[in-house]
C-alpha cells in the first residue's frame, strides 16, 4: 500500500499552478508522467519517490549514501581490530 518507487526526472511540464505541474520520470527504463505538485524543488536529473502517480519526496543523494559509509567504516574497523570476515 505504501509502494513508492524511485525514478529520475527527465523532463518537467509546467502548467501555471503548481497543482498541475507534471514531470516525465524514468524508472529503470520505463517512462511515466507523474504529478510534481508536492515536490516544487524537483529538477531534471534529480530522483524522486513516486507513490500512486505523485512524487512525494526528492531523494537526498548524500543521505542515501549514509548506510554504505557506515558499512564501510564497520568493515574497516573490523579489519583493524583483527576480525576479518571469512
Amino acid at each position: 500500500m505504501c509502494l513508492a518507487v524511485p525514478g529520475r526526472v527527465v523532463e518537467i511540464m509546467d502548467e501555471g499552478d503548481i497543482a498541475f505541474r507534471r514531470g516525465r520520470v524514468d524508472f529503470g527504463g520505463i517512462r511515466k508522467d507523474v504529478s510534481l505538485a508536492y515536490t516544487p524543488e524537483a529538477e531534471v536529473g534529480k530522483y524522486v519517490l513516486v507513490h500512486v502517480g505523485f512524487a512525494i519526496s526528492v531523494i537526498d543523494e548524500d543521505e542515501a549514501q549514509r548506510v554504505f559509509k557506515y558499512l564501510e567504516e564497520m568493515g574497516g574497523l573490523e579489519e583493524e581490530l583483527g576480525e576479518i570476515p571469512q
Partner: protein
Amino acid sequence: MKFLSEYRDQKGAEQLAQQVWKKVTRPWTIMEICGGQTHTIVKSGLEDLLPHDITLVHGPGCPVCVTPIDLINKAVAIAQRPDVIFCSFGDMLRVPGSSKSLFDAKAEGADVRIVYSPLDALKLAKANPQRQAVFFAVGFETTAPANAMAAWQADHDHVENFSLLVSHVLVPPAMEALLSSKNCVVQGFLAAGHVCTIMGYEEYFPIAERYKVPIVVTGFEPLDILEGILMTVSQLEEGRHEVENQYVRATRREGNRPAQERIAEVFEVVDRPWRGLGEIPSSGFQLRERFQKYDANRRYPSSAEPARESPECISGLILQGIKKPHECPAFAVKCTPENPLGAPMVSSEGACAAYYHYGRRQNHDRVQPELSSTPSR
C-alpha cells in the same frame, strides 16, 4: 534500479545483521506498522539473518485489511449501480465483503476498474460525463495527498460526476492505541517510512516519551529494515527511548509541507473503526465541508448489508502483535487467501496473507544461514 537495488545488497545485509548480533543481550519485541515492510521482511526471509532474541511482529499496517467490512459492502453496492464507473487500487478488489468482493461484482457485470492513481479516476469522470466515477480512497497518510489533490482538482475544474469513498486511517493514533493496551508486547517500533515522508515524524516524540519506546522511522528495502532494527536494538540495549530517522534519503522531520497543506485543506480528522480492532479515536480522515459534495458515502446513502462476525478469527490479537499468524488455529486450515476469515488474510499485504504466501507456517521455519563472517558472541 537506482536507490532501490543497492539496498538489497547481500554483503551489506550480512554486515548489518552481524552488528545486531553483537548488540543484542536479551529478547526484544519490535513492531512495524506497514504492509510494505511486512512484505519485505517475509519475502526476503530477513528474520533468518537475525538472532532468535529479536521477535518481529506486524501491526495493523495494511489499510486494505483494516477497512471495515461495511465499507466494502457499501463499495460493492455503489459499484453495482449501472451509472457508476467504480475505480479502485488493485488490492481492494479481492477483499470479500459480507457476500461478495468488488471482483465478484465485476464478474457479474459491474463496471469496476483498476487504476494506479486517483487522478485516473478523475480523468474517467471527465471522459464519461453521462456516468458517475467513484474512487475508493483507501490508504494511510501516504496516499492522502493524492486523494486530496483529486478532490481539489475536481473542485477546481467543476467536475460534478466524481466522488470519493474515503477510508483513510492514521498511524500514530493506532500506535498509541496499541501501546496503551494492557496486553501490549511491543518494546520498539519501526515507523512507516512513507507515512513519515508525508507527515514528518514530529508526532512520534510525545509517544516515545509517554510510553518509553524507541521509534525509528524506517524504509522498505532489506538494508533499510535491518538498519532500522539495529538502531532500535541499540536504543533498547542502551535504555534510550528516542525518535530516530533511518530513512534519511526520503524523509525529513517536518515531512512534506505542500502535501500536508493540501491534506489539511481537503480533509479533517475523525474517529474511525478499524476492522479487527474496533474504533480508534481521531484515527481517520473525512472530507471537509467544502468538499463533502465529493463524498460518495453521502451521494449514495443506500443501506448496505449488515456485517456478521467470525468467532474463529483472532485478527485483533494478530494486529496487535500478540499472536503470530501461524499461531492461529484457523491459519492455513480454514482460513486461506481463497477463503479468508478475517482482515489480515484478505489483502496481499496483511500479515496472515504474507505469512501464508511466503510459507511461514511454523516457528521452526526460521533457518540460520551461514553468515560470511562469524559473529563473536
